[in-house]
């Protein structure tokens, strides 16, 4: 521990010296009496001061939490000899906040461990290292202090609070594995598709007896197969709009978490692409393990400033399987992302764009010019949306005031409308 002298020690020594000098110069013995208490404290303080030998550990009650949760931190302190007073401060990472006393001053009895419990609130999703501890021990009279910085960091993963999604967008095309999506193809399933004449080899239970009685020959029911789908969550991390603790990236991450959980719950294969300054991807897969993989990838998601032009060519081929539904979560702020998405559409992907609206986080500048610039920017965004719609891509705007289900419904309405238009 590093020893230092408190301001009090210097001030008391200076006061005592001044009073003693004053007594000599002014020939006033009463000033010696004034100096005596300060000298007494100094002498006693020096005599009682012992360098403490404090050891500490930091333990988290759990290493995973969801945004908004509270996590308890246990700090264990131990010293062979009593420490009259020790100030303990746990450095709290940016994404977390301490509830209650931090820093805290306690007395540390010699030879007995002392436990301090501190509650941390997980204010924002992300990975954090908790456990940088600052200790400051004082002597009984507060003249000297010993300081130490202990690095006892342990990781804490704070997952984003996922948006609840009850209904999901169905991929236009399904894959070959069994799942919960009703496929266009006929096969073994529950949903009725059509009737056809009985053929040798057909199962008896497939016969539609009513239709057979009406038509005088055997007819069987055909059904839609139930297959899984491939869904790729495409997160645009080139830029974000942010005000205070809220921003478009937070919303997009929450939506991605909710959609991933929803699709994986329906036995679909889900992949993840974080497309931005730093490229990050996960190949589509199914199951709970994939959900954890996606959650961990979401924790690493951040906006990294980058001027390099990137297209979808930089993505590994298997990341975007053919006939996959690509759900893009983007604030439509960066031309690289918007162009890459149009490129995906041109390659035949079933693309849905969720426009995580930056409008609540952006205010018009002051004056007429600021207002005009804001209007132009909004028009530019509308033009980008128009480009997508002309390419047959549903674009749904979403902000934190609306549930994600509203977006799903908007895209469904677009698809219904587009189907009628095609018909």
């Amino acid at each position, binding site marked *: 521990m590093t020893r230092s002298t408190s301001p009090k020690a210097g001030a008391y020594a200076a006061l005592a010296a001044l009073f*003693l000098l004053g007594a000599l110069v002014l020939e006033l013995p*009463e000033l010696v009496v004034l100096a005596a208490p300060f000298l007494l404290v100094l002498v006693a303080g020096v005599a009682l001061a012992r360098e403490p030998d404090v050891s500490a550990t930091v333990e988290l009650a759990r290493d995973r939490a969801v945004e908004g949760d509270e996590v308890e931190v246990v700090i264990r302190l131990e010293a062979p000899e009593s420490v009259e007073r020790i100030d303990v401060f746990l450095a709290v990472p940016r994404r977390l906040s301490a509830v209650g006393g931090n820093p805290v001053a306690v007395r540390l009895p010699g030879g007995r461990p002392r436990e301090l419990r501190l509650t941390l609130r997980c204010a924002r999703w992300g990975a954090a290292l908790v456990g940088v501890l600052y200790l400051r021990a004082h002597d009984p*009279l507060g003249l000297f202090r010993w300081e130490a910085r202990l690095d006892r960091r342990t990781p804490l993963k704070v997952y984003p609070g996922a948006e609840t999604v009850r209904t999901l967008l169905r991929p236009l095309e399904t894959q070959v594995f069994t799942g919960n999506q009703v496929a266009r193809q006929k096969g073994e399933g529950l949903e009725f598709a059509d009737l056809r004449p009985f053929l040798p080899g057909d199962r008896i239970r497939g016969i539609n007896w009513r239709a057979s009685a009406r038509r005088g020959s055997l007819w069987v029911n055909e059904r839609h197969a139930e297959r899984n789908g491939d869904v790729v969550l495409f997160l645009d991390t080139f830029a974000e709009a942010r005000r205070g603790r809220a921003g478009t990236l937070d919303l997009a991450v929450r939506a991605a978490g909710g959609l991933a959980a929803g699709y994986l719950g329906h036995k679909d294969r889900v992949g993840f692409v974080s497309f931005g300054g730093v490229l990050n991807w996960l190949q589509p897969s199914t199951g709970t393990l994939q959900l954890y993989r996606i959650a961990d990838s979401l924790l690493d998601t951040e906006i990294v400033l980058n001027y390099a032009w990137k297209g979808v060519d930089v993505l590994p081929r298997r990341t975007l399987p053919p006939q996959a539904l690509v759900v893009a979560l983007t604030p439509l702020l960066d031309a690289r992302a918007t162009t890459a998405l149009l490129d995906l559409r041109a390659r035949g992907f079933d693309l849905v764009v969720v426009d995580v609206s930056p409008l609540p986080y952006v205010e018009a500048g002051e004056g007429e010019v600021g207002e005009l610039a804001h209007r132009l920017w909004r028009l530019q965004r509308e033009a980008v949306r128009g480009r997508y719609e002309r390419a047959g891509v549903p674009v749904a705007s979403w902000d934190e005031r609306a549930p994600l289900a509203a977006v799903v419904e908007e895209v469904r309405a677009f698809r219904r409308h587009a189907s009628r238009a095609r018909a």
Partner: protein
Amino acid sequence: MAAAGVAGVLVLALGLALGRAGAVGPAVTLVGAAYTAFLLAREEGATARVPLCAAILLLAAELAYWALEPARLRAERTLTVRRALVLALAASGSAALALLVLAASSAEARPGIVLELAGAAAAAGAVGIAVWLLWGRAQA
């Protein structure tokens, strides 16, 4: 006299308001200077109260340093009680010591070079301790 005392109180108030520990020393010095001026112009009988004043000066300085600790530093109750006890002990002990010093200074002693030298050495020693402590702080 009164001006120095008022200035000391003002400096202390300002230091407490701004959270500057460096203001406590000058504030106590100013109050001490005012009291010195009072002692120089005193009438008979004022000397008996000097130990009390000395203890009060120390108590004021200690309480000021306590008040200057960060507000968000939460101290447990037992620690606060112990600290208050230590403070009371220091104040009463210093009053007793001051009384002792006062009694010693009132005793009949033959003035001479030896006593003068002892006094000068004590003063120089105190200055030395002050310089050493301040230098240690500057190094830290």
